[in-house]
Structures are given as structure tokens and as C-alpha cells.
């Protein structure tokens, strides 16, 4: 066992020139190259990067758990000054879970489904400290209380599937903390969770760091989360750290073109689609075995210098005057960021036209049969899942309407009804004054079908892997009767590929030969093949890498603009919604709780749920302060929704029993801004903005029109 840390005061963890490779049939694939890291006691380092950048591999290498085809091929990892390569299997075992512990991305998958949580928790003290069962139990219960789980005794006896995702993650955190570790590795601990649940976990992690004086490595693809949890950050790109330093320095004065590009490509509150458009990073992430020579970011970089940036390995250079700020770029001193005016996404203001879609009191209930004994005895076997309750809003030509909400809010059900995959239980879905609510897709005319098309979420199954891109597009064109002659169809396929800025020879490719972003472009081309008047985009970029998201979003907006298409944008990403939509509909448990123009919804008065949602979104901007509102409890089940206001069980502004008994009235604040809440109008008007620029106390709206805090 290593020293207990009392007489050691050096860094807890050091990585020096760490290189990790995976060995596949195709040969050695370097996953992490020349990775340095120093972590002091009580410090916290963020590893941020896109998929495949090697950030999780680093964590697994620290744990010495790389699987049978992975291995450390260079450099070393020192734990409390001792090279981890010298640890025996038994020493490693004693280290794991005791001194170094880990929190994982998928809490459900990380817990053994057939053991009670209590057993899984108690194992940690039982095997590391050989304590008595009774003590292990007591410690586990205390730790569950420490991670703020209600009713720890009940949790101890429960199986993982019996508690919610957020609670599962708290159990995993409790398990990691049980042995009071020196080092805690957190690998995307909130990615699988809803944003309001995420906020609670992040708060908890912050408290832990303070209370236990634990050093942390926090891995995430989300810059905003890093800002909230870490003091230092390593930005990784394609296996290398491209920039490291304190969070403040890196976020405020980034030096590497990739870091800069990343910040310009994410929709920070300052961004605006007309005034300060997003700047996409061109191209794709290189595949590990196709990395260019020299700088891996070279092909995507605006400052690429032929013959210089593509030669040899590029070393980290220290930024003078800033302690520990280093950057892996040959030209970082030459670049004049002040003069850099990259081509943003085109940003013409569009004037919405006539309403095309009008939803009136639409309801969608699913009937399910409850087969439990209790239900049969009570004779309540048929239950209704109220997926959509009283949905009313409209959308005009060329307008972007965002539907926002967390999982289970009913936004996808709504899309299914609109597309005709389901029929509504009640109410009207008027599309160009024709009611489609009861028309399944089979009953619609080809024009109606071609007029409303959809872009899907998951690039990996939006296209049929068995058919070529071209034949899939051709089928749509033929189906909607846009063209019928083979030559013209082919011509149209080519035009569509041009439209989504893909090379024409992609027509002959199969989906697996395309990257995620390219597939999503084909998905967009497919949706626009029949010249639709309205496109429903269901989280079209949420599964894509950050650096690709902006480009795909921009493409979607460009096409929308040139076709004057109405876009229904379904998303949980409030930042993106704020950036691109004209109007926002906020949904919770099947109900619309608030709707209105984007700027109105994002500024007070808010519906309490909108307020909480806004406060929960992490923002990668050091100059912005958010009010913290942590929602209590878990999302109620749609099977058993709360009476009265659906949000009352978690509402931080609940005013009394009226919220539990009566449906909230819809308050019209003018100009179509409607809030469904019992809070009196004058109370609502007194609300403070959630997001403020630090020191200025201005609403973020004011900030956005003046100066972008993200820039420079």
C-alpha cells in the first residue's frame, strides 16, 4: 500500500508524457499522446474534449484498467510520487476504490442490477478496511445521507432499477466516497441525466470537494460544467492536450485556435443568430488512424501554415506570465486575435409570414393495462398515460418554434402526432387549415406528407445502413412525386447533396462510410427532398460533437431561410434554443407551462419551471453569474402525474395548497407570452433574471446586444 499521505506533500497525481495505445487488428492506434498533468492535494482538473479525444482513456489509464487490447506505451503515471507501473496487482486492488475512486457516465449500467444497493455500498469498507458488517452498514447509511438521498435505509434495501437516474448517480458517488479517497475521477457523471437533475449532482460534487478535501479529475465534453467544478482545465483534441491552464485563463484568454473555435461554436448567452452568429469549425474530427502529420488540428485551422504546422510533433509551450498555462501551437504568439474576424453563420433577419400550423387543445393519451394484483382487485386495470395534455400553440411560415423540456415531457409524442405516426386523442392539429389530428399518415395525401417532414436525432440510425445515400434520397424524391424520370431524380439527388454541402460522390456511399455530422446532413437533405413547408427537427444536433454541431445547425438554418420553411425545433438544449428560435414552448409532463417569444421566455417573468431550467444550464462563461435553483425530488411518473399544477411537487415557488388542487390558469402577459401558473401577476413581475453578467446586474438580454463576454 502507498503512503497514507500524511508525510507526503507533493502532487497527488502526475502524468508525464503519457502515451496510451489500443492494439487492434489494424495495428496500433494511439489514443492519447504526450499527456501531462499535475494534480495537487485538494485540486481539481477538468479534461474537456470531444468524443474520441482520449479523455476517458486517461482516466482508465490512471486506474490501470485499459482492457486487454489497451496499454501504456510511453511516459508514466505517478501516484503520490510513486510510479504506478511498479504497483503489484494486489497493491493496485487496494488502491482502487480506496484511495482512487471513480464515478461513471451511466449510473444505471454501473450498478449491479441483481444486488441490493446496500450490499454494493458495504463492499467498499468490508474489503478495504475489513470492518464489521454492522459498521459497514452504518457507514453506508451515513454516506447516503451525506449525498442527500432521502430515506437512506430504504435505498440500502433497494435494487438499482427501483430508484431514479439522479438517485443512482448519488449512490455511485456515495460508493466512491465511502473510503474517503484521496483522488476522485468523474467521467461525464451527468451526461446521462436531465439538466435539472444534473444541477443537483454538480452542486453535490462541489460540496464534496470542499468537505472531504478530495482531489478531482472531472471529465466532460461540456465546457460549462468544467467551469463550475474545476480550477484547472486540460483541453484535449484527438488524443493530445492542446491547451492547459487555470480555468479562468483558458476560458478568458484562450490561445489555441481549437479552444478559440470551440468557444465560438457553442451558443453562449451572448451569441445571437443575427448580430453575433456562431462560428462553426469546418471539417471533421480526424479518425485516430488518419491523423494528419504535425498539428492534428491543422486541416481545420484558419491559421494553418503550410510546411510548418504539418511537420513533426508539436510541443507544449508555456504562456509567459501565466503560471501553468501552456499551449500546443507553433503560432500562438503570432496570431492576432483582435484582427480575427471569422466567417460566422449567415445571419439575415427573417420576417415570419402567415400561420401554417395551429394546434388547439391537442391531447394524446396512451392506454396501458396494469396487470398488478392491486389494480385488478380495484378494477382499475386501464390507465392512461397523459403524454400530451391541452397543447395549444401555432407556428408561422419561416418561423422557428422551439419545444423545450426534459425527458418525458411529451415533446416526442407531440412530434409523432404531428407526423401522423399516432393520432391525437382530442383536439385539433390544423395544418393550413386542414385538421390532421385524426389523420394517420396512411390517410394523408402525398402532398400533406411531403409538406411536413422530419429530421431525426440519432445520426447512427437515421439512415438505413443497407442502402446507399443516393438511393435513399432518390426514394424520397420519387415517393413525394417531386420528380419521376430517372435522369431528373439523379439530378435532384445531386442538388440535394450540394444543398447540404456534401461531395456528390457520396451518393454511392453507404451510411457507415460517413461520419456522424455527414449522416446528419444527409438526414437534412432527406427531409428537404420533397420541398417541405414545415420541418420538425427532433434534437438534430444533440448527438453530434460540439465542433460539428454549429455547422449542422447553421446548415439547417440556411436551408430553412432559403426555402422559407417553418421549423419546429425540439430540444433540451436551452442555449441552442435561445440562439436559433423565434419562439419557445416550454413543456413539463405533457403540459405547456410557458410559451412566448424567445427573448420574453428567457427573461423574467418566468414560469418557475423555466426559471429552474435556465438556472440549471451550465454556461461556459466566467463573466456570467447564475442564480442557483436546485429542484427537489425526481420527475414524477407520467403514469401517476400530480394533481393540480404538474410542477407543484418540485416547485421552489409553490404558493400553497391551491397548486396541488387546481389546474393553474394560463396568464397572458401580452404578445403571446403565456404562463400557466398560480402565482399572481404582480409576484411574477417581481422576478429577478436568472442569468446576469457579474458585477453589472444587468439582464442577460441587455448583455447580449452590447458586448459578448465570450469574445476575446
Amino acid at each position: 500500500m502507498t503512503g497514507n499521505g500524511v508525510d507526503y506533500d507533493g502532487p497527488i497525481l502526475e502524468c508525464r508524457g503519457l502515451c496510451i495505445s489500443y492494439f487492434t487488428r489494424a495495428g496500433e492506434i494511439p489514443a492519447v499522446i504526450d499527456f501531462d498533468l499535475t494534480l495537487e492535494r485538494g485540486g481539481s482538473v477538468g479534461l474537456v474534449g470531444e468524443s474520441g479525444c482520449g479523455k476517458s482513456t486517461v482516466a482508465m489509464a490512471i486506474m490501470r484498467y485499459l482492457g486487454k487490447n489497451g496499454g501504456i506505451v510511453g511516459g508514466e503515471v505517478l501516484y503520490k510520487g510513486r510510479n504506478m507501473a511498479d504497483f503489484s496487482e494486489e497493491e493496485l486492488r487496494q488502491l482502487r476504490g480506496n484511495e482512487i475512486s471513480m464515478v461513471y457516465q451511466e449510473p444505471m449500467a454501473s450498478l449491479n442490477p441483481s444486488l441490493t444497493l446496500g450490499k454494493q455500498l458495504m463492499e467498499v469498507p468490508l474489503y478495504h478496511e475489513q470492518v464489521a458488517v454492522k459498521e459497514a452498514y452504518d457507514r453506508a447509511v451515513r454516506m447516503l445521507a451525506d449525498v442527500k438521498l432521502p430515506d437512506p435505509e430504504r435505498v440500502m434495501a433497494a435494487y438499482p432499477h427501483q430508484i431514479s437516474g439522479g438517485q443512482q448517480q448519488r449512490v455511485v458517488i456515495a460508493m466512491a466516497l465511502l473510503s474517503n479517497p484521496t483522488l476522485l475521477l468523474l467521467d461525464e457523471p451527468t451526461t446521462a441525466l436531465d439538466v435539472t437533475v444534473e444541477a443537483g449532482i454538480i452542486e453535490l460534487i462541489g460540496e464534496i470537494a470542499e468537505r472531504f478535501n478530495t482531489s478531482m479529475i472531472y471529465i466532460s465534453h461540456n465546457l460549462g460544467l468544467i467551469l463550475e467544478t474545476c480550477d484547472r482545465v486540460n483541453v484535449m483534441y484527438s488524443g493530445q492536450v492542446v491547451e492547459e491552464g487555470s480555468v479562468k485563463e483558458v476560458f478568458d484568454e484562450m490561445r489555441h485556435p481549437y479552444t478559440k473555435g470551440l468557444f465560438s461554436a457553442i451558443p453562449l448567452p451572448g451569441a445571437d443568430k443575427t448580430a453575433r452568429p456562431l462560428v462553426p469549425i469546418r471539417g471533421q474530427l480526424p479518425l485516430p488512424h488518419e491523423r494528419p502529420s504535425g498539428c492534428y488540428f491543422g486541416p481545420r485551422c484558419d491559421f494553418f501554415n503550410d510546411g510548418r504546422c504539418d511537420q513533426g510533433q508539436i510541443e507544449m509551450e508555456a504562456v509567459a506570465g501565466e503560471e501553468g498555462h501552456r499551449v500546443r501551437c507553433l503560432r500562438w504568439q503570432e496570431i492576432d486575435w483582435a484582427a480575427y474576424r471569422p466567417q460566422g453563420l449567415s445571419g439575415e433577419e427573417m420576417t415570419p409570414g402567415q400561420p401554417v400550423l395551429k394546434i388547439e387543445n391537442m391531447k394524446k393519451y396512451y392506454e396501458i393495462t396494469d396487470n398488478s394484483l392491486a389494480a385488478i382487485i380495484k378494477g382499475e386495470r386501464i390507465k392512461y398515460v397523459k403524454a400530451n395534455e391541452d397543447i395549444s400553440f401555432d407556428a408561422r411560415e419561416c418561423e422557428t418554434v422551439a419545444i423545450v423540456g426534459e425527458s418525458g415531457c411529451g415533446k416526442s409524442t407531440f412530434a409523432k402526432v404531428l407526423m401522423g405516426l399516432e393520432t391525437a386523442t382530442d383536439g385539433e392539429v390544423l395544418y393550413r387549415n386542414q385538421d390532421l389530428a385524426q389523420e394517420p399518415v396512411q390517410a394523408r395525401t402525398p402532398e400533406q406528407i411531403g409538406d411536413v417532414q422530419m429530421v431525426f436525432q440519432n445520426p447512427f440510425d437515421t439512415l438505413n445502413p443497407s442502402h446507399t445515400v443516393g438511393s435513399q434520397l432518390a426514394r424520397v424524391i420519387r415517393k413525394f412525386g417531386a420528380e419521376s424520370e430517372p435522369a431528373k431524380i439523379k439530378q435532384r439527388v445531386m442538388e440535394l447533396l450540394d444543398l447540404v454541402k456534401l461531395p456528390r460522390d457520396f451518393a454511392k456511399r453507404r451510411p457507415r462510410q460517413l461520419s456522424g455530422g455527414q449522416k446528419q446532413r444527409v438526414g437534412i437533405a432527406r427531409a428537404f427532398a420533397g420541398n417541405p413547408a414545415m420541418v420538425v427537427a427532433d434534437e438534430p444536433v444533440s448527438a453530434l460533437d460540439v465542433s460539428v454541431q454549429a455547422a449542422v445547425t447553421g446548415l439547417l438554418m440556411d436551408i430553412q431561410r432559403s426555402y422559407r420553411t417553418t421549423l419546429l425545433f425540439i430540444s433540451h438544449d436551452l442555449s441552442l434554443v435561445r440562439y436559433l428560435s423565434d419562439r419557445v414552448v416550454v413543456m413539463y409532463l405533457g403540459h405547456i407551462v410557458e410559451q412566448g417569444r424567445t427573448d420574453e421566455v428567457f427573461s423574467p417573468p418566468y414560469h418557475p419551471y423555466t426559471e429552474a431550467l435556465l438556472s440549471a444550464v451550465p454556461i461556459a462563461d466566467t463573466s456570467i453569474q447564475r442564480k442557483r435553483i436546485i429542484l427537489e425530488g425526481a420527475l414524477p411518473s407520467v403514469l401517476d402525474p400530480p394533481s393540480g399544477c404538474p410542477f407543484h411537487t418540485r416547485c421552489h415557488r409553490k404558493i400553497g395548497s391551491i397548486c396541488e388542487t387546481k389546474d393553474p390558469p394560463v396568464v397572458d402577459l401580452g404578445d403571446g407570452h403565456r404562463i400557466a401558473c398560480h402565482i399572481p401577476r404582480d409576484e411574477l413581475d417581481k422576478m429577478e433574471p436568472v442569468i446576469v453578467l457579474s458585477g453589472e446586474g444587468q439582464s442577460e438580454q441587455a448583455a447580449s446586444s452590447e458586448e459578448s463576454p465570450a469574445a476575446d
Partner: protein
Amino acid sequence: MADQTIDALRGEPILLRILKGIALLRESGVGMIGAALVLFWVVVALFAPLLAPFDPLATLQLLAFPGDPYVLDPGKTFDGQAVEEVCALIETGEKQGKYDCGTFWLGTDRVGRDVLSRLIYGTQRVLLYAPLATFCAYAVGIPMGLAAGYLRGWADEVLSFVSNVILSFPVLVLYVIIIATIGASGTNIVIAVTFASAPGIMRIVRGLVLDLRNREYVFAAQTRGESAWRIMFVEILPNARGPLIVDSCLRLGYVIITIGVLGFLGLGLPPPDPDWGGMINENRLMALVAPHMTVFPCIAISSLVLGFNLLADGLREISLRD
């Protein structure tokens, strides 16, 4: 959703893709061994008339052991014909007698027929009926599975119940009852195998479809208003091919065993046609004196089944890789 009418949008020709798929098999050692075994028997079946030294039905010499020569009594005249001609006649079974006309490489069977020749001709039987029966079972099982998995509702209920009923019979009991009722013949074997295997195939296809039907490209096709028929056969089925190819290899091996068992139990192809299972059964009482009569057919059938099983394992290994 493919629109294959336009050449320019087509990818590589199907044949090329199949060849590429086979080329992938090189990376799996067991898969290659399996393919080699299967190929060996296919070649044997195709060239049976060239490979078989004797007529499989002709009674030539009792109790010849492996390697024994086929000897004609010397000193007898043969209707004025040359020895070579007589040998040729003997080989075709038109004549009987003893002369040095060849070797019983694997000996002769209970009634004096050449085991090797019977094995070789038996291959033809096995490799005709087993693939045919398997194909028929898939032709029935796949549409059933697609309908049950994609349409759900009552179609699923009915089809699943029917297949449950059939699958609740122990397989061989089912075969024995069917064959004993409708009689033993090649066609009836195909019918019995189809009847007994289709429900299993249906279950597999249904399971695959239940997964595939929730893919976004299926939703895309639905929102496009494609017919259920098109979605099932064009959108879903091609994506289920991987597991189905693996399954078909395994199933083929199993059907070969089934045909063998039926032959062994006397319910297979009617004698005297050479049938591997039948050969084992006919000669098993001679096993004490002449084990070669049964051992070689045992090895033949086992190696062919092994070939398909190894091939399936290799294919599975490859399909899991990418």
C-alpha cells in the same frame, strides 16, 4: 428506402459485396476451417459420378475391409470381352464377379456395396435436401417473423401462439410423428423440416424486427407514408441479414443432423438409396466385426455439420467486429 432503379446511385454490385464479405472470413481461423470442410463436401457432391469408384447400389463383395482390392475370379471367361470392359461393367453394377478392378478404400457394407461410393452419393442427397429444407423454412419463417414483429397486435398474437404450440413439441417427437403420418420421402422431409423449423426462425426474425422497428430510418419511412410491406422487406429485412446468415449456417448443420436422424431411425429416404443416417443404422449390428461400415458415415456427417458450425462461428466473430 432504396430506389435501385437508378444505376448511378447504386453502390457496389451485390456480387462484389458478397465476395468482399467472404474475403473477410480470412480473418477467422475457425471460419476458414469450416468453409473448407463445407467446400470439400460440396465439391464431392458436385463431382460424385467422377469421384465414386463403384456403383453405390451394386452388391460387389461381402465383407471387404478398407483397402481390400476388388478381385474377380481369374481364369473365368467373360463373354469374350476384354478385362477392362468387364471392369467397367462391374463398376456400373451391370455385372458381378471377381477381378482386380479397383480398391474398396473404405470397405464394403453389410450387403457388399462399396462404402466410399455410397458416402459420395449420399453427399448429394444431404446437400440437396438440407439446403432445400432450410430455404423453405426461411421462406415461411421470415415473412411470419416480419409480420409478427412489425405489425404487432393480433398478427403477433396469433403467429406467436401458433409457433409456441409447434415449438412445445420436442423436435424429434414432432418429426417422428409427422414422418410416420405422411410417410418417408424427400419431399416429406422438406415439409417436415419447414413445419418444425419455421416457428423458430419466426421467433428470431421477430426479435430482430422488434429491435429494428424502432430505428429512426423506419420512422422516417413511416412518416413518408411507405407501405408496411415495403418497410418490412426493404427497410427492415436487409438489416437483419447478419444474424440470419449466422443462424442459417447453424440451422443447416442442424437440418443435416435431423435428416441423418430420420435416416437412422428408418424414417429417411427410402432404401436402397445411399443415405448417411441409413448407412449407420443398416450396418450398426455389424459394428463388432466391421466397424468401418458405420464409422466412416459417422465421420462424414460429423465433419459436414462441424463445417457449418465452424463457419457460423467464424461469421459471427466477423459480424461482431464491425
